[in-house]
């Protein structure tokens, strides 16, 4: 065994394992075994990650608020998800008498199914995408539209005004934020020249000196990454964009009328969507499974993918613990007045970046790529500042004056 293959074994362990399993099954069953061996780990790992995330989220939010968080079930409360699972499984499943029973039943299933489908194109390690579609990104966004349908199914079939309001908010929000989400990923597609997520990661898994060619390390990529993550948070109804399920105003929104295991399925689907869209953000901007420094490439690629995923999840929780929920008009203003123009600017900057020269100047200490750095940084920063000032309308934040209530 050579040195390079010693490095490759832990990296490719799951690929090798799958190959071995397929090879040792009867020839007739091989396609089926191949599919099962690919799908079952996804169906196990991400719900397991969901279980870990629920307790992580409660702990992190608690610490942000100077509390302990769950610490009763098991050591440090790490067995809390098991208690939650038992609770949601044993709870009574109530279907409202006036509800459309078929649609009411189907909505959580469609939602969870669609959330799982999104993982099929994500490369979770080197050679570890379930399917390498040429139009993987397109497939991801196409699948990403199904939850909108499921959410509306849930809201409509419940025959409850809170559910209906939540569903309508969800549709408005998801459709609005899909625009900046897709536009900011178009910049990456332009830079990489492909829609295949596997090739997009491979384009980023190269190094200059010790630094990787991640798109987030370019001015347009950085802006695009921020736009993408904000739009992603809105797309998966994550705080501060959780208006569709605002507990304090519309009692949970579209899943108001769900209880027991169906409620748990909604909860699961929400987190699965969050992981999927974070995974897409990692794939597009953070170099997917590639190591952050060239001297760390010996660490298996799948570890990097999941490390980045957990980091982004912690980021989402951090933001949830910080930013209060937006108002509906603020939400729409942010999407259409700030994020849409900014994502167009990012596309422009990505185009310029592509055609401005890179590489070193002959006979100069400054690399020639300085030019495109400066140009693209200005191109992104100046419109941002101007747009933000314009939208703030020149008024600063003043102390609110109450005319009658003093």
């Amino acid at each position: 065994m050579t040195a390079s293959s010693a490095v490759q074994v832990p990296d490719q362990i799951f690929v090798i394992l799958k190959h071995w399993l397929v090879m040792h099954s009867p020839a007739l069953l091989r396609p089926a075994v191949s599919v099962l061996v690919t799908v079952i780990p996804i169906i196990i790992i991400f719900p397991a990650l969901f279980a870990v995330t629920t307790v992580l989220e409660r702990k992190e939010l608690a610490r942000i608020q100077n509390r302990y968080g769950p610490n009763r079930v098991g050591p440090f409360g790490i067995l809390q998800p098991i208690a939650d699972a038992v609770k949601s499984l044993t709870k009574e499943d109530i279907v409202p008498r006036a509800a459309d029973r078929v649609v009411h039943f189907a909505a959580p299933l469609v939602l969870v199914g669609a959330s799982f489908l999104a993982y099929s194109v994500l490369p979770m390690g080197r050679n570890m995408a379930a399917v390498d579609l040429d139009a993987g990104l397109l497939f991801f966004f196409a699948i990403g539209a199904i939850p909108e349908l499921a959410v509306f199914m849930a809201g409509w079939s419940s025959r409850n005004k809170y559910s209906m309001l939540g569903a309508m908010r969800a549709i408005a929000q998801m459709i609005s934020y899909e625009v900046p989400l897709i536009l900011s990923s178009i910049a990456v597609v332009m830079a990489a020249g492909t829609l295949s997520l596997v090739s997009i990661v491979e384009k980023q898994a190269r190094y200059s000196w010790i630094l990787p060619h991640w798109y987030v390390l370019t001015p347009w990529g950085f802006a695009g990454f921020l736009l993408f993550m904000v739009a992603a948070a809105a797309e998966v109804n994550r705080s501060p964009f959780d208006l569709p399920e605002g507990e304090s105003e519309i009692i949970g929104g579209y899943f108001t009328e769900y209880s027991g295991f169906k409620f748990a399925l909604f909860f699961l689907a929400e987190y699965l969507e969050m992981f999927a869209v974070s995974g897409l953000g990692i794939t597009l901007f953070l170099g997917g499974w590639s190591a952050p420094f060239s001297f760390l490439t010996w660490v298996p690629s799948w570890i990097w993918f999941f490390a980045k995923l957990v980091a982004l999840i912690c980021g989402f929780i951090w933001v949830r613990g910080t930013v209060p929920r937006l108002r509906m008009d603020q939400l729409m203003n942010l999407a259409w007045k700030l994020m849409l123009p900014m994502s167009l600017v990012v596309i422009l900057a990505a185009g310029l970046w592509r055609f401005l020269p890179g590489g070193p100047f002959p006979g100069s200490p400054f690399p020639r790529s300085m030019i495109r750095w400066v140009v693209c940084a200005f191109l992104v920063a100046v419109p941002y500042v101007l747009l933000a000032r314009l939208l703030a309308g020149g008024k600063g934040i003043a102390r609110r004056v109450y005319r009658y209530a003093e």
Partner: protein
Amino acid sequence: MLGEGIIQGLAETARNFFGSFVEKDRLTTVQFPEERRELAEATRQYPFLLYDGADPEAGLRCVACQICEKECPPRCIYIEKSKDKKPDFIGKPQFYPAVFDIDVSVCMSCQICVEVCPFDAIRMDNEFELSTTDRFGGLLWPIATLAKPNEYYQSIHPTEAAETDERRAKELAEAQAKAAAKAATSVAQTPGAGE
């Protein structure tokens, strides 16, 4: 305007997050069943009935005047007056409650019964660990559950109890003085009366 506020907010929450691991006095949570914070003296939960001496039946201060029953806003008190009378602490014959029930599922701990009671017979308890595995039973408290000795009252609300005890001691002394004076006059008048 440019998102500085969000950055500041994130910094603040991060400070809280890490601070809660470093500074112990940031975490104000009391881990309840193991750790207990001393209750404030004015803590009140549900009412109880006071009795003097050792026997709850004989020493019960309540005279079944039913003022608390009428004043109770959620009407959680039910009283049945006795037919006969028994002497109270100054020896005056008084009615006593044959039945005195408080429905604690209705009681809202407002303390109005305590405010209106002219006989210092009802006071607020500070016992709050009342959960049971029985969903419906045990919510209607009879005299047997409600009656508690004066020493218990002194232990949970010392300031209030001292004030009440002082007032009652004065009342008793006055009553005794009056009785003594009456006895003296009746003794003085007896010969005259015999005339």
